[in-house]
C-alpha cells in the first residue's frame, strides 16, 4: 500500500515535470523597447481609424447605391407595369361580321381609337396586324379576306395620321382559330384582327387620358 502511494506520487511528479517543459533549457526573452511599442500602437490605431473612416464611406456609398438602385427598379417596375398595361390594350382584338372587313362602330372602333392614341404617344412603336377568318367560306378566299381585315385596320390608322411604314399586315385565313368549335359564338371570336408589337415596344408611354 505504501509502496503503491510512493509510485503514484512519483508518476505524478514526472507528469508535472513533463507539462512544464522540464528537461529543456529556458530561453531568455528579449527586452521590449517601450518607444517602439507606443509607435506600433499609434500606427495600428491610425490604420484602424482610417479603416473605420473608409468603411463608413463605403457603407454610405452602398446605402446610396442601394437607394438609387431601388428607385431605378421601382421606376422600371412602374414602367413595365405601364408597358404591360399599354400592350394589353394595344393587343385587344378587333372583330368582324361574317364575310365582311369593315370596321364596326362601337367597341371595335373604340379599340382602334386606343391603338391610335398609343401609336401617337409612342413614335418608335411599330405594329403587326394579322387578319383571321372563321372556318366557313373557301379556305383560299379566307386568306384574302384575312388580309382585307388587316388592311382595313391599317388604313383606319393611316387615315388618322399614322405612318403606313409603321404598320405591317399579315393574314392567317382560317388556319388559327382562337376557338376551335363550330358554332356562332366561336365563329364570332375567330373573325378577328390580332395586333402585336413589331418593334419599339420595350418601354411604352401611356397616352394622356388612358
Amino acid at each position, binding site marked *: 500500500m505504501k509502496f503503491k502511494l510512493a509510485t503514484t506520487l512519483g508518476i505524478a511528479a514526472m507528469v508535472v515535470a513533463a507539462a512544464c517543459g522540464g528537461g529543456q533549457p529556458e530561453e531568455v526573452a528579449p527586452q521590449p523597447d517601450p518607444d517602439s511599442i507606443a509607435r506600433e500602437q499609434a500606427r495600428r490605431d491610425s490604420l484602424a481609424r482610417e479603416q473605420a473612416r473608409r468603411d463608413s464611406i463605403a457603407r454610405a456609398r452602398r446605402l446610396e447605391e442601394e437607394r438609387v438602385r431601388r428607385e431605378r427598379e421601382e421606376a422600371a417596375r412602374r414602367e413595365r407595369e405601364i408597358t404591360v398595361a399599354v400592350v394589353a390594350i394595344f393587343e385587344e382584338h378587333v372583330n368582324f361580321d361574317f364575310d365582311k372587313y369593315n370596321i364596326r362602330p362601337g367597341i371595335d372602333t373604340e379599340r382602334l381609337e386606343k391603338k391610335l392614341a398609343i401609336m401617337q404617344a409612342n413614335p418608335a412603336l411599330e405594329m403587326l396586324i394579322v387578319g383571321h377568318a372563321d372556318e366557313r367560306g*373557301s*379556305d*383560299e*378566299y379566307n386568306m*384574302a379576306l384575312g*388580309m*382585307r381585315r388587316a388592311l382595313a385596320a391599317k388604313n383606319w390608322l393611316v387615315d388618322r395620321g399614322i405612318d403606313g411604314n409603321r404598320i405591317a399586315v*399579315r393574314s392567317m*385565313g382560317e388556319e388559327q382559330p382562337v376557338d376551335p368549335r363550330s358554332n356562332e359564338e366561336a365563329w364570332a371570336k375567330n373573325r378577328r384582327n390580332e395586333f402585336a408589337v413589331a418593334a419599339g415596344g420595350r418601354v411604352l408611354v401611356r397616352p394622356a387620358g388612358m
Partner: protein
Amino acid sequence: MSSRRTALAAALLCAVPAAPLFAQDTPIEQGVRIGITYTPGLRPGILVLGGARSVELDSARAILRRDLLLSDHFEMITLPGGDSLLLGLTGAPSEGEPEQATGPADPFVNYSLYAALGADYAVALLVDDSVSARVAVYDVRGETVRRELPLALKSLDDPDFRMSVHRTADEVVRAATGEPGFAASRVLYVRQGRLWRVDSDGEDRAPVTPPGVTTFSPTWGPSGRRIAYAELEGGWGRLMVGSPDSGGFQAVPPTVELLNFAAAFSPDGGVLAFSRSGDEGTDVYAYNLAQDCCLQRLTVGRFSDNLSPTFSPDGRQIAFVSTRPGLPQIYVMAADGTGQELFAPFDWGVTGSSHAPEWSPDGTRLAFHRDVQGSPQIFIMDARSRAVRQLTSAGRNEDPTWAPDGRHIAFISMRTGRRQIWVIDVETGRVRQLTNVGETRLPAWSPRLPEP
C-alpha cells in the same frame, strides 16, 4: 342447260354487288332538277376471271377488279358461287367455283357463260413467268381477245406494286371504252397542316411533308412528277416546288415574302400562277419557273381581290376568283392577264359566292363551289356554253378537283360531320367516300402518274 343458265344469269344480275360506300347524292330542290339522267344497264358488263394463284396475283386481281368498279364504266359481273378473288388469300376454293379459277395459266374462256351472265368483257391475268404477266381483255360478244397488256409482276412490298396494277387497270378501261381510267393517280390533301397523299382507290396514305411545317393549297405539275404547295409561317406564305415522292422542296424565289398561296402550274409546267396577298390586297401573279425569272402581275385589284388561278389545258386562259362584283365570283382572262371578264354567270343578289375553280383535263368544263343558302355545293360549268349545273346538295361540299379521266371530281364534304374527301361521278351522280381519317382539306387530284 340453256334455261338453267338464263335463270342463273337472272339471279346473278339481281345480285350485282352494290359497293357499300356508294350512294346517290340527293338532288332535291323544289322545281329544280339537278344531275343528269342515269339509266342502269347501259354500262357494259365486265368480269374479272380467276386463274393461277399467288399472293401477288390474287392482290393484283383484287386491285384490278376494284379499279374497274371505281371507274364507274362497268357493271361488275361475278361468277356463280361467288368470286374467288376475295377468298383467294385463304387458298380455300369456294363451293361451285368454276374450274378456271384454279386452273392453268391460260384459262378456258367460256364466252357463252360470260355472255349469259351479262358480261361484255372478261379480264384475265395470265402468268408468263415469275416476273411478267399479261392482262387479257376478252370481247365476250365477239368471242375474241380484244387486247393483251403487259404487267410487270412486282413483289407485294415493292412501293410501286399497287400503282403498277393501277396503270394496267387504266389500260383495261381504255381497251373496253376507248378512254383510259384514272386508277393510276393520287390525291394530295392537307390534314392538320401537313400535306398527305392517297391513291385514287383510298389506299396507301402517306405524308408528303415533314411534321411541323404548315402547308396549304397543294397542286400538281402536269407530269405528275412535281407538286407545289404554300408553306405558311407567321401570316406569310412561300410557295414550295418539289417531288411528291422524294421531296427536295425549294422555295420559289419571289414568294419568300408576302403571303403567296393557291398556285397552279401551266400545262407545260413552265409557269406557276398564284395568289399573292399584301398591302395591295390579293392578286394573281405568274412566275416563269422554266427561266427562273420574271414575276408578272396579272390582275390589279385595288379594292377587290383576285385569287385561285387555274389554267385551261391549252394554256391560253386562266380562270380565277374575283371579288370585283362584291361577292367572289368566277372570272376568266388570257394567260397574259388581258381580256378579264366574268366566266360563270350569276344573278345579282341571288347567287351566292363562288370559289375554287378548276378546269377539267379536257378543257370543256370548269368545276367550282358556290354557296347555296349558306352551304357550299359543287357546280360544273360548260366552258363554251357557260351553262352551270349543280352536282351536290347533301351537306357542305367544297374545293372540287378533277380526276384525270375528266369524269370524276374529288371534293371535301361535311355530310358525315367531318371534312372528308368524297368522289362524285359527274355522269351518274354516284358518290363514294375516299378518306376516313381526321379532318381533310384542300384536295388536289394528280394527272395519270408515270412509272417511277
